[in-house]
């Protein structure tokens, strides 16, 4: 594997011209992870490198770990190792490992409708429940669902949506807040939501009011194809349009980092054209593969949930708001033997190391708090008012003891 194929995992650059320029740091490349990211099987490599003056390169010890320090210019990195090469690549304790966001938003989109797409609604509502449980408030969750499941005449359990054949949890619940429902879930509304170009009369609950410190979780599910995602069986959004929408967001500084999860067939095609920084994309299947659903509920009669979301939820159910689980663990959540399709990940636009990023940085809402050490020393104001305050308080309390009665329900007009 030549250097120009190395993915950037933590700092550093895409080595596109065949040389890796690194900063002053200790870099150890996890080739296994790189192999997974690039979907190519890992074999042995050969090694050859040239050093700039003043650099140090420790020779690969027998355990086959390569450690690159300080200003190294590698012409090509091809190492030969008898066994699996574990060359771990991290940038020491960098400041990028610190949290850089101030608030969390989630945009959860289900792009399909009709009864036989029950599982997509269950997918997105289960994600909604997880995200709410981990702390993101409703005012910062935008839920776009066709919402035709719970009250569908074919639903044997009306007003409920389940994500499991055991029907433990009703993910529809009593406090679900759907922001875009029914025929409002369109490509135009979705792109308007992302770019912020909404009509002035749009209510706040339908706006994505993010700023440059917001981490956004974008989860999309439905039916997809090679390069497009089908919306409500009548239109589609292409990967180019999605990439352009993200670029418009980046230019206006409407996000800090985006975690983009997509659970459809041929999902990896949707993130192919992204070119804005700080996006980590996870797809449930690669181009040419179909994402499969998990199991059918014989009582309801349709497939209840998709495989990728099922295993992702299993993982998320064990995450508490103060948990220390990392994104790297989340990326391993659905190996090929259970998911049948291969999970695709796009890491090159994401500068931080996923093994240092907590899951709650996207799924939960953990704020940075600062203790106030010194309070301003203000002069006491309104001295003359103190007496008046006591008086007004007394009068108010006496007023409060009047008995209360219900207002008349219907205004009666006395003739």
């Amino acid at each position, binding site marked *: 594997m030549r250097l120009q194929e190395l993915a950037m995992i933590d700092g550093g650059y895409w080595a596109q011209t065949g040389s890796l320029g690194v900063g002053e740091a200790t870099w150890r490349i996890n080739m296994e992870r790189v192999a997974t990211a690039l979907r190519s099987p890992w074999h042995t490599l050969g090694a050859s490198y040239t050093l700039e003056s003043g650099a140090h390169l420790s020779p690969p010890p027998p355990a086959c770990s390569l450690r690159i320090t300080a200003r190294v210019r590698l012409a090509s990195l091809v190492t030969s190792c008898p066994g699996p090469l574990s060359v771990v690549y991290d940038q020491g304790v960098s400041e990028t490992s610190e949290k850089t966001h101030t608030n969390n938003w989630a945009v959860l989109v289900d792009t399909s409708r009709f009864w036989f797409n029950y599982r997509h609604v269950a997918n997105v509502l289960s994600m909604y429940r997880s995200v709410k449980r981990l702390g993101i408030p409703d*005012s910062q969750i935008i839920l776009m669902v066709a919402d035709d499941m719970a009250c569908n005449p074919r639903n044997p359990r009306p007003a409920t949506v389940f994500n499991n054949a055991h029907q433990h949890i009703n993910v529809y619940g009593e406090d679900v807040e759907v922001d875009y429902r029914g025929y409002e879930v369109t490509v135009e509304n979705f792109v308007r939501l992302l770019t912020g*170009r909404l009509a002035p009369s749009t209510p*706040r609950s339908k706006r994505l009011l993010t*700023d440059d*410190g917001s981490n956004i979780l974008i989860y999309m599910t439905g039916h997809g194809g090679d390069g497009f995602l089908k919306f409500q069986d009548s239109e589609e959004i292409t990967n180019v349009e999605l990439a352009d929408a993200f670029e418009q967001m980046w230019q206006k500084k409407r996000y800090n980092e985006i975690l983009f999860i997509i659970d459809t067939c041929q999902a990896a095609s949707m993130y192919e054209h992204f070119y804005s920084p700080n996006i980590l994309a996870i797809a449930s299947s690669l181009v040419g593969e179909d994402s499969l659903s998990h199991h059918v509920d014989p009582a309801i009669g349709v497939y209840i949930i998709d495989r990728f979301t099922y295993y992702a939820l299993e993982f998320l159910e064990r995450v508490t708001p103060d948990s220390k689980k990392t994104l790297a663990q989340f990326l391993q959540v659905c190996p090929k033997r259970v998911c049948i399709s291969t999970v695709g990940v796009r890491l090159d636009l994401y500068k931080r190391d996923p093994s240092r990023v907590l899951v709650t940085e996207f799924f939960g*809402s*953990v704020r940075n708090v600062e203790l*106030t050490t010194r309070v301003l020393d203000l*002069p006491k*104001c309104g001295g003359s008012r103190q007496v008046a305050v006591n008086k007004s308080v007394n009068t108010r309390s006496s007023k409060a003891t009047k008995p209360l009665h219900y207002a008349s329900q219907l205004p009666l007009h006395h003739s």
Partner: protein
Amino acid sequence: MSKEEDNAKNPEGAWAAAGFAVVLLVVGVPVWWFTTTVYRAQLPYSTIETLSSQLRHHTVGVTIIGSLPPSFQEDLVKSLGSMQSVKFLMSQRQPTKEERQALHSGKTPDELDRHMSQLVRVAAGMLAVVVLPEAMEIKEVVVGTDRLIYIKATADLQVVSSVVRNMVMDPLASRYAFTNRPLHHKKEAMRQVPTEPGYDVTLTLMVPEPHRTKIEWDARAAVTDYLSPVVKQLENVSKLTVRSQVLYMTGLSVSPQWSEAHKHYALPENQLPLTINAIEAKLGSFVWTRPSLHFVVYIPREKQLPLHIHAADGSPLPSNSFLVPRWGGVMIHNVPTAAPNVSLPRPVTLDSHWIMSTVLTHLHRLLPIPSLREIEGVETLAMKDSSMLTAWQLDGLARARVSAYLSNIRITLQSLCELVGEISNMVISDEVGGWVWGAVEEWEECGRATREGRLQDATLYCTRSFTQADAAFFHPSMLALLYFPDNQKYAIYVPLFLPVSIPVLLSLKMVFGLCRKSSTKEKNE
């Protein structure tokens, strides 16, 4: 051969073909062009480019009243000159007779400051450094309430230089003015609210057990006394709308431990980050679209009284409050525990002064109001009778906001121009065009005002320009999705024109053949 002879014999075919071609080109193409061009209002692209590439700096005039050793002055000039986004214009003059009298008669810094502020009139956006006579009994560097700095000739140059720099503009804001991206790895940068023309400030009093404690707090009076003067002062710089509410039966879900050593319930620092998630939905932040700041006053539950926040090292925090960056602040107000046989609910009065001091501390850090707390050896005088900001604080805030606005406007307009250039058939309505022109004009004015040091004008122009640029950028018609890209134009028009044009082009061959025939015939003849 016969075909050519036939053609030569009936030139009508050729004339017909020529006629078709002429109609197609002269009538058809213009009609098609005019019926399919979209209306695009003219935008000032070149002006935007010129203004984007201009470097902006603030100009601050500093007058030194008194005499300093020349080396001190030179060094001061040099160290101030290294500040990138601010250019200092130094001037010097001797104090007048009244000023000299005031300098010698002032006993305390406050008295001195009061006299001098009346005598020395410093314009908005400028500073004055007053050199004190040696005999005075005050600290080396004292910062007054109205743009005056009092220093002794023996003061430390570094201290004076950093005082002036911090007074003039927040150091983070000056770095921000030069980079496109915000400074992510700085905690201070992430603490400030994003620069917007207006904010909503909500004061929330949380009473989880109203059946046990009846809270009596006149919020309106507290806000009028402490917060309204500041809000009024900041009117031109940022509009703050203040509201207050009381939340009953809602508590923070915290689990404090009883601390025997301090005889109170200790709330460790690591429980704080998750506290506000549960109450955020109830604070009513979903009502307005302006960015909101929340200040929460929490009365602990009866069985958790008294509740104190403990820092990481286990010591209780005297202020009992914490700041959430870009969101607001939370403070815990302990009330005395109920005596055993008192009738419930018992009335409790809250300490307005403490609450409003905490609220204003948090507001100062969020806006952010420049402060000199980190610099040692400096005494800062505050306003005596009210909670209002000092004039230099207001100037510093205005300057930081103007820098942030200028950077934002540049990014917005550049991005808009790129978008419009990319999609050549995007409609640019007159409304959007008007906003862009307005934004560019005000931007130019703001840049000029900044360079000339007219801070109030600059703030006004910048706010208007920012609002207009944002309105143009976020106009609903600017959505790229609505317009098909250029390559799809071919897919639409080729099937229309090709079937018509092919026969015409082929028959043109006949026309040319005829022309050549007639010219060769003429030549032959």
